[in-house]
């Protein structure tokens, strides 16, 4: 633990902010729900075990993916609800009681002397452990009629505050063709490695960092392909699902309702993949995805406060990458996802999220720049600081599984996010603090993330009625340069979490 004078504290505002933000994010992730789409309601409807559709629930295997692509239909001419027992209602709940221990380094805290604040700060590692809950998901999904499918997922955080995580209707197999399917509503983008079906639950390991990476200080929250989005999706696939394509048009709102952001700005997302038979190795799949969109950087203000739904001055961003799903026999598989991301320089300087949303359709921003401490808003006459660059980066996700049996799966994941161009590039004025809160040229590795996750899930039983998994997981995350430094230079942050829980649904 170290202490500093008041004058030196002024130079560490940024790192304090970043540490606090990291803690808030970690808290939200830990206490937030982990929506996932494992539906024993489908197993009950069709009499198939969880393992038929899930490599290990909720992660889909190829058969489950085809079932989903067909609009939650087996295509056996008995998919319509008219064939079900009238008492059947396709509802599943999922919740996870857990014990976890979270340890975060380089957090700035106050110091005291004789019971009184010293006015000084200290940096230390904070660890906390205890029993906890995940959020609660109520999945209801299936068919309204043959080739008319739906999904409604009210989801709560661990305090019971609900929002609609997923809501859509889908027209399946239009004109009798599997190549014509239209989805409308709030849904997960067509990611082959689905974050909503992720096998891990910790705060940092329970998401794919590659799907959510935002450079430090960047104001573009709209390129997170892991978040459910509002829009319309075309999807087509071959009868055996070996070939898949999709195209989505979504509001640039990161899935937030009420159009507080994303009014009049849109993003397109495209995917394509091809699977091929590799004999005893199994079925392999390779594909790509690409996202191109624009989002507002200026929100009209009233009394200095940005007004929801008034976004203009759109700027562009892109995300693109490759996906590979490789099987090495019946027990081992590896999924690889890459990403190259790029944001307009305005986003890099912190513009874009002047309307801070609370995730439930509400807004939290009460002021905007140039007021110090308020979100950057590209009001008329604003200019970019000299030397501003369009931030870009590359991300890699490698996730492997050893499937001992349908009841026991071991999981290992490595992710790396590497900045290739910083917003405050080499030409940035040294010592100048930009609207993104970053001072001077930043180090080339500033904000890079490296994370490992290992774990296993054991299902003591496997039926077509319910799911239960004993879950054990460890995640370690390292980020370059974002720790509280108290003016002593850049400091890396290491965060770790150990989690044990009962993950069940019925």
């Amino acid at each position: 633990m170290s202490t500093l004078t008041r004058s030196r504290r002024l130079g560490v505002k940024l790192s304090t902010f970043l540490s606090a933000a990291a803690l808030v994010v970690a808290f939200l992730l830990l206490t937030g729900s982990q929506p996932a789409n494992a539906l024993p309601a489908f197993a009950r409807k069709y009499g198939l075990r969880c393992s038929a559709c899930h490599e290990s629930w909720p992660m889909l295997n190829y058969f489950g993916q085809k079932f989903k692509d067909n609009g939650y239909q087996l295509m056996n001419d008995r998919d319509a609800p008219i064939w079900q027992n009238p008492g059947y209602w396709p509802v599943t709940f999922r919740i996870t009681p857990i014990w976890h221990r979270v340890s975060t380094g380089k957090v700035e805290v106050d110091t005291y002397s004789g019971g009184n604040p010293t006015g000084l700060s200290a940096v230390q590692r904070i660890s906390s452990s205890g029993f906890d809950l995940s959020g609660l998901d109520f999945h209801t999904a299936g068919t309204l009629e043959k080739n008319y499918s739906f999904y409604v997922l009210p989801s709560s955080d661990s305090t019971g505050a609900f929002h609609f995580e997923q809501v859509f209707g889908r027209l399946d197999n239009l004109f009798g063709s599997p190549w014509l399917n239209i989805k409308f509503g709030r849904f997960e983008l067509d990611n082959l490695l689905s974050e909503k079906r992720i096998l891990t639950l910790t705060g940092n390991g329970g998401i794919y960092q590659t799907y959510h990476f935002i450079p430090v200080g960047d104001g573009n929250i709209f390129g997170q392909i892991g978040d459910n989005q509002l829009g319309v999706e075309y999807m087509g696939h071959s009868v055996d699902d070996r070939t898949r394509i999709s195209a989505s048009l979504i509001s640039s709102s990161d899935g937030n309702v009420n159009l507080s952001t994303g009014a009049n700005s849109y993003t397109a997302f495209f995917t394509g993949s091809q699977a091929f038979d590799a004999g005893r190795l199994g079925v392999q799949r390779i594909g790509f995805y690409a996202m191109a969109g624009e989002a507002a950087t200026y929100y009209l203000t009233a009394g200095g406060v940005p007004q929801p739904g008034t976004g203009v001055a759109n700027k562009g961003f892109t995300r693109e990458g490759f996906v590979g799903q490789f099987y090495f026999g019946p027990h081992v598989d590896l999924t690889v996802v890459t990403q190259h991301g790029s944001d307009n320089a305005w986003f890099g300087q912190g513009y874009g999220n002047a309307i801070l949303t609370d995730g439930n359709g509400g807004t939290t921003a009460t002021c905007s720049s140039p007021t110090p401490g308020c979100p950057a808003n590209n009001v008329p006459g604003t200019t970019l600081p000299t030397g501003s660059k369009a931030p870009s980066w590359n991300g890699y996700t490698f996730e492997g599984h050893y499937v001992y049996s349908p009841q026991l799966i071991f999981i290992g994941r490595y992710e790396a996010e590497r900045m290739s161009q910083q917003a405050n590039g080499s030409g940035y004025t040294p010592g100048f603090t930009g609207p993104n809160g970053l001072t001077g040229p930043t180090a080339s590795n500033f904000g890079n993330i490296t994370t490992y996750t290992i774990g296993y899930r054991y299902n003591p039983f496997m039926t077509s009625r319910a799911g239960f998994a004993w879950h054990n997981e460890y995640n370690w995350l390292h980020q370059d340069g974002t720790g509280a430094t108290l003016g002593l230079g850049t400091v890396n942050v290491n965060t770790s979490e150990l989690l044990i829980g009962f993950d069940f649904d019925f």
Partner: protein
Amino acid sequence: MRTRLQTWSLLLGATAVLALPAASWAQLTQADFEPRLGMESHVGNLTGHAKDAKADYRRYCVGCHGELGDGNGENAPYMQPPIYQQPRDFQLAVFKCRSTPTGTLPADQDLFDAITRGFDRTNMPQWNTLSKQERADLVAWVKHYSPRWATEKPGTPITIPPEPEVTADRIKAGRDVFARVQCWKCHGVLGQANGPSASTLTDDLGRPIAPFNFTEGARPKCGDTDKDIFRIFMTGLDGTPMPSYADNIKPDEAWDLVFYLRTLMRQDSKEKVLAKGLNLKPVDPNAPAGQQ
């Protein structure tokens, strides 16, 4: 002094104790099938191995077909006619969809096709997402449940002559065949599965079974190509009341019947267009033979 009652009680008790192991011997276990784990299948260039299918069978199939392949998986009790049919009992080695004559074992390709195609109007989905090797392995696994595969050879697939051109005369001839071999008794005069015998049908295990409804729009269980339909009534669906008509219908007549059946189906077809022009009436069950 031992009474007569005591003596009888002792005898009965001893009998019961001796009978218990015998009863458990009658109950098959997985160990009974292990000697046949070396079973192979041959599908095209692929050789399937039963032992390699164990994980896939457990993952995908066991919920319906059961650990012992007897069709008594946990879901079997909930699959009841008329909505669903019971899962297949692999121990009996009796299969509906075959290219081989009635009463014979199917070819490996038949089982492979069944796994790939699935069965409409049942809980058996299309497993075409599995690799061909996995499906070939599963065919071998299915075979390992019955000793028939060790002692019998599959039948020789029937010969299907080339499909002739559809004509109005052939459709009319097919209608005559439909009347002559009394397809209508089960399938109904309009193919609506409402013939006079329909409600009385049971499978070989005594379970109720419904005839195929041509007008529902569903695909025939054993495939929906013209060749598949030809094969169905020339090989019969073993284990069901649908017999083989190989001895009653000549191959050329069989094609006529295929064309007529197409006119009963909901799906659009060249045959339906031709039949519309013919103003074809349903068969008359009361008409004298040859006077439809």
